[in-house]
């Protein structure tokens, strides 16, 4: 364990032992652990997450104030995933064993291996440092959203593309598609009419399975791009050893995780009527 508690940190660089003790009494850190814990739990129920040394009080409003930035980043990442991953997988499947297919496989393998923080750094070098095209920090308008979104979404795009391709290949091999094709319907029409709905399922599946990645990845990406979201705050909290704040954010992330999974389940049912009957 690393030494020290909130009081010692708060009292600051020049506090003496008696100052720290004073502060400790005020924060209730001198009371028994069980009592502290009970107080904290009771507080949680009331929306009071305890004493954060960073904000000198209940951190919840401050954490919530940062939530929109994180939500924007995640929404952008999911949107980009759908916009890029889905068509890429479909094209690869239609052109099975053609060059788009090989290119995609290569990209997928690459994107799955590259750490998001490194991808982000390389984007900063290429688009910000060298050319000055895009702002590389904070939220300064929509252009500043581009690089963090790319860094966060890359892995999801790859996974969705790969899965879409797989499902599409299965679908395209099914009898009804073959028949339709044999009848001379254009491949595009077939894809559009019959297959799209089935192809949406893997997208939703991937996003559901990767919720953990999305939330965790946002921490790294926010840190890298100084994105004013909850994840960035979490790393600050770790550095300041503000455990109340770390705890609050963790709870928020868990809530987010559950919420996204719930949404995914709902989406499933909406997309796939067969599940509705079941």
């Amino acid at each position, binding site marked *: 364990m690393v*030494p020290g508690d909130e009081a010692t940190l708060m009292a600051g*660089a020049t506090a*003496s032992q008696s*100052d720290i003790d004073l502060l400790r009494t005020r924060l209730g850190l001198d009371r028994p652990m069980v009592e502290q814990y009970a107080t904290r739990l009771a507080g949680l129920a009331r929306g009071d997450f305890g004493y954060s040394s960073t904000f000198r009080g209940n951190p919840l409003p401050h954490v919530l104030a940062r939530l929109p930035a994180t939500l924007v980043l995640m929404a952008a990442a999911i949107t980009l995933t759908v916009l890029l991953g889905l068509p890429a997988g479909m094209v690869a499947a239609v052109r099975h064993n053609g060059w788009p297919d090989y290119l995609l496989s290569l990209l997928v393998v690459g994107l799955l291996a590259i750490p998001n923080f490194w991808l982000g750094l390389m984007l900063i070098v290429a688009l910000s*440092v060298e050319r000055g095209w895009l702002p*590389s920090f904070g939220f300064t308008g929509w252009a500043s959203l581009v690089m963090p979104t790319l860094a966060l979404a890359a892995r999801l795009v790859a996974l969705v593309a790969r899965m879409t391709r797989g499902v599409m290949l299965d679908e395209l091999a099914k009898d009804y598609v073959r028949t339709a094709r044999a009848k001379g319907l254009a491949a595009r029409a077939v894809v559009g009419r019959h297959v799209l709905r089935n192809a949406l399922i893997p997208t939703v599946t991937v996003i559901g399975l990767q919720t953990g990645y999305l939330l965790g990845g946002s921490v790294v990406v926010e840190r890298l791009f100084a994105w004013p979201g909850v994840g960035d705050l979490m790393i600050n909290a770790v550095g300041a050893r503000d455990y109340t704040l770390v705890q609050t954010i963790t709870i928020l992330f868990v809530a987010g995780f559950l919420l996204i999974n719930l949404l995914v389940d709902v989406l499933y049912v909406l997309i796939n009527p067969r599940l509705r009957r079941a």
Partner: protein
Amino acid sequence: MKRRTVLTLLSTAATSPLTLGSPLRALAQATAARTLTYGQSGAVNSLDPAQGAFTTYPAGYEVAYCLYDRLVDFDENLKFVPQLAEAWEVAPDLKSIRFRLRKNVRFHDGTPFNAQAVKFNVERLVDKARNPTNRPLWDPVAGTDVVDEHTVVIRTKAPFSQLLNSLAHGSGSLVSPAAVEKHTEKGIAQNPVGAGPYRLESFTPGQEVVLRAADGYWGGKPATDRLVFKYILEASTRIAALRTGSVDVIDSVPVQLVAGLRKEANIEVVVRPSLRPMGLAINLSRPPYDDPRVRRALNHAIPVDTIAERVFFGFAKASDAPLAFDTQGYQKQRPYEYSVAKAKALLGEVGFQPGASGQLERDGKPLKMTLLASDGLFPGDVSIAEIAQRAFQQIGIDVTISKIERGSYWDALRQERAALAFDLAVFGFNPSNASGLYHLESLFKSNADDAARPTVWNMGRYRNPKVDELLAQANSNPDPAKQLAAMGEAQRIVWEDAPYVWLHVNQNVTAFRKGVKGVELWPIVFTIPRRARVEA
């Protein structure tokens, strides 16, 4: 005025369409000139001089110097200049100062600034319950006497030559008493009301502070309408932001980038030696580091000149005294020459001989060391630790580095003696009240109780009665020459006793867009934009 500009623009456009771009840009800048954005390396979380003070350091202090006035101000060279006190008179016994206050000054909430306000503030700062931080600055104060509406006397318990330093220090910022009552003791940190050149417009803790020029400021309305302080942790992002023009000023520029930045047409770089000597604090409470010869040996083992020149690209200078070169009271000592042979010889004197593996041993026990390092708290801190580790290994000491995250570092240093987890620790003290004496006292005055947490920053438990006596003399002797002599002698003894491995003094680097004027870079690592303006 505006119409004229447009007319000029039109005529320029008519005569030469090629140059249209630049006057347009000038116009854009003229409007933008009202706002100046400063990309800070630290986050501002609270803006109360008491209750834990402006966190984080130094970002909060930089905002505070724009938002609040104090009785006494520092100029860019850390000389005292009058601010809300027009004049003062130091008592011959150094036990009180009488201040004549500026008249017709109001806080941003409209309430008057007067002797009662000073009394309220000083009492708030002295009260440990309300102000647990910066104790050494305020503990010596005994009380405040209101003589009349515009005269006040501040008394100390004992002769204290540094009272003006405390009052000019950021924590001496004067808060509107009415605002403290309105927003409560705790709330003032988020709703600060001062009497400085700027008032608060908006504050998002941990991200951004926006200040607006205060109407009716006694020193005249500032040239820049709005000051925006934006927290940008990474140096590379700060620089990118400066280049793209989303900020006008940045601090803590890594020295390796200075050469490149200086070549850029739109960027100006200011470099200034700091007052913070970097070093490795030695824990004297455990053998063999209780022996001054061992500590001197360590000082001989590190190539300090090479580090300053190569690792910091010349933007640092090897130390030759416990104080930094520009600190008031600094006195040059004879540098410890870099010599592995000397280091080994000294350790040999103490009984350490190379064992079978080349490691130094005494009575069959190998010489080991734990070196505590911060991560990003000081320039190049991890690198410093790694270089020291290698250098000590070269004289036969087995060194383990223990890296502590930023926020917990101070606490790891200031443990009770029994809980000290280091033999050496990377440390640099910044005398933020500009007093060399405060610097020496904080680091080298004996602790009240060596077993408990250190009183200030003497975490190595250095103890020399002679040094204590000299420092007490410097604090109570009204003759500045005698003060300096005592400080000089104290430095000589400390340098000989070597409770530190002294390394170097860094230079601070701040950069801003060409056309920005009046940004102050204080030697105590603060970048202060209170008088900054943009000239198109």
